[in-house]
């Protein structure tokens, strides 16, 4: 009986060693949570169109001196894990904007401001001067930051609404714009960190 007990003890010790060894083999297991860096920006229209109206009778000018257009901006952003948090910005820039035309932009964040940060992340803030509480800020050929402090986030089906107003500031300098190629009017949205 005494011997049997000893044998049982040895069995227990071996079992314990086996258990420890078995457990240790998983200490270095790699776990991939599938969270990777990405950057996506999109708007809901292929183009931005300002219609000043067509002169129909001799002696008419364009029927409007200003024209409005708007677009909705969405993004998804996941920064790298080296401390680059909440530092991404979205910029807007016009290329080949016609002579004699000014464009002013306001950014409405009411669609995203109520998003839960725990669900959608840090969706950024509107840069001072572009808020809808003011009259907007002129944008042109230099990139202008419009949304800043973007961290790991996504807008989902919500969006920022970008409202543009183009105005004729000098009729004498208006000129026909090129329709294609390098001289075509283009609006560029840039995301950078």
């Amino acid at each position, binding site marked *: 009986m005494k011997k049997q007990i000893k044998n049982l003890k040895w069995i227990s010790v071996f079992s314990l060693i086996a258990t420890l060894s078995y457990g240790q083999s998983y200490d270095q297991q790699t776990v991939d949570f599938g969270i990777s860096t990405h950057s996506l920006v999109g708007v809901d229209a292929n183009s931005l169109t300002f219609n000043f109206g067509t002169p129909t009778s001799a002696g008419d000018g364009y029927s409007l001196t200003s024209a409005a257009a708007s677009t909705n901006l969405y993004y998804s952003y996941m920064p790298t894990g080296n401390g680059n948090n909440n530092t991404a910005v979205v910029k807007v820039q016009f290329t080949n904007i016609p002579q004699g035309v000014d464009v002013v932009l306001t950014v409405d964040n009411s669609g995203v401001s109520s998003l839960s940060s725990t669900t959608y992340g840090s969706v950024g803030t509107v840069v001072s001067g572009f808020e809808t509480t003011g009259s907007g800020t002129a944008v042109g050929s230099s990139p202008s930051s419009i949304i800043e402090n973007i961290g790991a986030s996504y807008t989902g089906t919500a969006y920022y609404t970008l409202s543009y107003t183009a105005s004729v500031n000098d009729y004498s300098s208006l000129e*026909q714009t090129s329709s294609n190629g390098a001289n075509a009017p283009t609006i560029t949205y840039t995301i950078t960190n």
Partner: protein
Amino acid sequence: MPSLLFSQVVVNSGLTQIIDAPLGTAQTLNIALQNNSDDAKRVTFALMDYYNDCNEGYVYVDGEEPIESSCRPWLTLENTELVLLPREKRDFSVLVNIPSNYNLPNANTCLFINNTALVDSVQKAGVIQFGVQIRYGVNIIYNNPSVQSSVDLFTQSLVIDTAGVNYAFELSLVNRGNASTTFHTKASILDMEGNMVYENTSIRQSIQPQQCRKVLLENIDVAPGTYELVLLHEADSGDVFGVSESITF
């Protein structure tokens, strides 16, 4: 969700690429691209220098001559344009040859990845139509290990938002030094007896020389009165920058 959001080439690697390597060595950066469209998509690549302005953010310099702290001449792009097949994923290579005689503490430039404008504009009387282009700006930053560098985080403004139920602080600070780092801010509010009534630590942020960053501290729930605000900006470089300010709610 508009399908346009995904119908483009997107960047699946970080928008900041930091190079920590000795002078005279070479390094390859791989920028991960993905065509999210069912059509082949063309992207173009361009390098442009920039500097930091506290008010304007990144200011891009469109010129042939590189600025003094530019690493643009060191970079060789795999190509200036690519066509990605539908749903294709691939890396775009940037070879960085670091010169052996560079004597500034850091260098930078920006790699722009440009999707083709989605539609060309059309000509019609009285109509101005802009094609839309989505662009990704990848900042490439070199930190020179051979040069004495310094970080100097200076608090330049404090805005107190009293509109909500609780108070919120927005700090603006600038890196007046010549080195990049990451930092976080520890904020403490002490009452007149020295008791701590609020404590918070901000998220970590990267900051380049002459760059401004904002730090937001929210949900400050204190009774009306006069307090001492103590801010400690702790940089990964090991430097700590402190400032205190008497505030009255």
